[in-house]
């Protein structure tokens, strides 16, 4: 892993931008995912789907208490054991207790973001349980001992060469760059664990309140295996994953798969309602569902309930121009990167230092808002977070002062006029007669390191309007000689002046 994800924000960004290997991988992957997504959503009436998906999720979040109770009632009726956990620690304690009492030695896991949030693997390993990730991407990063970099494709930051080397070292695989041979090696290895594990742990994509059903989306089939083969199945579900009706789950399932991977339907959609019956050949003998809060109620209390509608499809990060440049690890030690991560991380993490820079790591272009299948107004949430962080004085005092000073000048026309007159003098006192500055002192050097900065005009528009005197550079499309020159070769130009 090239980026130190525990380093301060600025150094993470710097490291991410200078790692050309990861940048290439992320760029390629995001380009493909965005393309696949676009094809899949353009093939349907996407606007109607988004409207309906939004209705379902907003309704669910606004009726969370009643729906949770309905879900619990039906899960219990179906034969599940339901547990509630306010914090990640509580959830881990419940899991440890179940593992201890059932004498679990190995647990297999399908992909679950909430289990990343609560660091479940570490917690179980503390009591000597071997936890094996079964989603191929998660398995790879588990072997590599790295955090995931994307919520749908956790290992897009790795090249096939890196993964091959990993498999050669850890699985004794023959050297190859053929993904199908590599997958075979993983299949063989993980099949052993699937068949021998004492406990299966899964997340939950949707929890259907009306029937007490836990829905899991996978393409590999590990979701089915985790929820069918071991004698004990534990579901870890964030409390916001609820939907009222079966039809809701069917719609959101397809919305998620189209947006996440560009598929019309994921290969597997497992709908588990309870343990096996006595005359069934297979299935878990016990099903536990742990309903986890872990700061979700805080998110709602702080007035950001919108973020709880997220169905974890990853569309926002696939279209984000910032994510495309820096990849997921640059967002730091968090389960959620990208636009939704820039909202959830500062809201949910106890340590505000981890997330406080993320709401500002955006140009607010709005691509994420247009992509989100449940129509979360992500830019709006980022703006409000910026405001909250400012008001709570968590942002840099210097930045706040600078912005306040700008505002002070702009508030009164007279002050503004004086300031612009002063600015106009730069033309008079400039050494060079060009229209731009190439090098400025701090803090404006932040701009001029890699860009020139337009000089203030000697006459503002207001002055011109008053005096109607024009002495301005008027645009003229250049003459033919200039046209012949075209772009300078890349060899002659430095891409960056660092």
């Amino acid at each position, binding site marked *: 892993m090239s980026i130190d994800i525990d380093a301060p924000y600025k150094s993470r960004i710097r490291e991410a931008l200078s790692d050309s290997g990861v940048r290439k991988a992320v760029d390629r992957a995001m380009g493909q995912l965005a393309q696949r997504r676009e094809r899949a959503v353009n093939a349907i009436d996407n606007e109607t789907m988004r409207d309906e998906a939004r209705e379902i999720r907003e309704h669910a979040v606004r009726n969370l208490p009643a729906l949770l109770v309905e879900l619990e009632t039906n899960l219990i009726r179906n034969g599940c054991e339901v547990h509630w956990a306010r914090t990640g620690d509580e959830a881990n304690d419940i899991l440890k207790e179940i593992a201890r009492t059932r004498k679990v030695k190995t647990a297999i896991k399908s992909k679950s973001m909430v289990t990343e949030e609560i660091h479940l693997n570490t917690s179980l390993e503390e009591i000597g349980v071997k936890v094996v990730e079964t989603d191929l991407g998660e398995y790879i990063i588990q072997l590599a001992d790295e955090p995931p970099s994307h919520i749908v494709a956790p290992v897009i930051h790795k090249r096939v060469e890196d993964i091959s080397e990993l498999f050669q070292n850890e699985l004794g695989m023959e050297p190859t760059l053929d993904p199908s041979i590599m997958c075979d090696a993983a299949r063989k290895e993980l099949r052993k664990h699937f068949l021998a594990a004492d406990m299966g742990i899964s997340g939950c994509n949707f929890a259907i309140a009306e029937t007490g059903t836990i829905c899991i989306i996978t393409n590999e089939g590990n979701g089915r295996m985790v929820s069918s083969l071991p004698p004990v199945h534990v579901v870890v579900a964030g409390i916001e994953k609820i939907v009222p009706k079966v039809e809701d789950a069917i719609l959101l399932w397809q919305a998620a798969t189209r947006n996440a991977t560009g598929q019309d339907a994921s290969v597997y959609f497992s709908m588990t309602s309870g343990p096996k019956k006595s005359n069934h050949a297979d299935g878990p003998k016990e099903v536990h569902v742990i309903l986890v809060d872990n700061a979700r109620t805080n998110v709602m209390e702080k007035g950001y309930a919108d973020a709880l509608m997220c169905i974890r499809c990853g569309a926002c990060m696939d279209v984000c121009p910032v994510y495309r440049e820096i990849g997921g690890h640059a967002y730091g030690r968090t389960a959620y990167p990208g636009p939704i991560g820039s909202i959830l991380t500062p809201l949910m993490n106890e340590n505000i230092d981890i997330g406080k820079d993320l709401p500002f790591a955006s140009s607010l272009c709005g691509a994420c808002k247009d992509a989100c299948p449940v129509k979360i107004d992500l830019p709006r949430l980022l703006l409000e977070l910026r405001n909250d962080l400012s008001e709570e004085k968590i942002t840099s005092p210097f930045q706040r002062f600078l912005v306040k000073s700008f505002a002070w000048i702009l508030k009164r026309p007279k002050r503004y006029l004086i300031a612009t007159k002063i600015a106009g003098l730069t033309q008079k006192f400039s050494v060079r007669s060009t229209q731009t500055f190439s090098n400025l002192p701090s803090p404006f050097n*932040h*701009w001029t390191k890699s860009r020139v900065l337009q000089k203030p005009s000697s006459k503002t528009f207001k002055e011109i309007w008053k005096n109607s005197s024009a002495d301005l550079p008027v645009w003229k*499309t250049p003459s033919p000689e200039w046209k012949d020159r075209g772009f300078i070769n890349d060899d002659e130009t430095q891409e960056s002046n660092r």
Partner: protein
Amino acid sequence: MGLFVSCMVDVLYPQVGVATAKLLADQGVDIVFPENQTCCGQPIFNAGQQEESYILAANFLEIFAPMLERKEISAIVIPSGSCAAMIKHSYSILVEKKQSDKLARQCKIVSENTYELSEYLVDVLGAKLPQRDSPLERLTYHPCCHLMRDLRVDQQPRQLLEAITDNKLLSLPEAETCCGFGGLFSLWNEELSVEMGLRKVKNLKACDAELVAVNDVGCMTHINGILIKQGRVCRAVHIAELLAESETK
């Protein structure tokens, strides 16, 4: 019609304001330019200091709403995509928090009657601009994110640009990807901002554009900032200037 040029145009690019005024005057529009205008408040709002930006919004509303209410002007026109979006789209956020009937009323009438320049030319005036002597070549178009996504204005500038290029407007690869300016984002996150700008510049090169029309001087400052620093020949030009040039005989 009331003209709001934006603080960046006033101070850095008055020629854009002049071109805008010329374009509108040539269409027979009476221009009212309230001289005590300053800034719409967007950079301050986006920096996360809403209380500060609220005062600027209130100033703007106090200048323009009464004129609309008294029917002295029928519209506000702005040669800036992001300012138009701020006023039409985001002022209501600030105003809602104040719970003032007066502000709500002012905000409503202002946002319903504010237009970005190309939007006004096409949708309201149905403007037919005079033909150029020769069509512009190797021109492409970079859409300002806020104009395109918050206001859904995209077809209008393209229509005007197709007209002056004899329908040979170049297609910019990844046109809808943000250039990386983002207001103060370009300072607080300058490395990231520049990388995004470099991608935009790379795409400009890929389509062999010599000129890129923009409707926001923020994008323009940032993109030209990189182009000039790199010694490239391509330039970003404001759409008002390109259209006004067409009218020069």
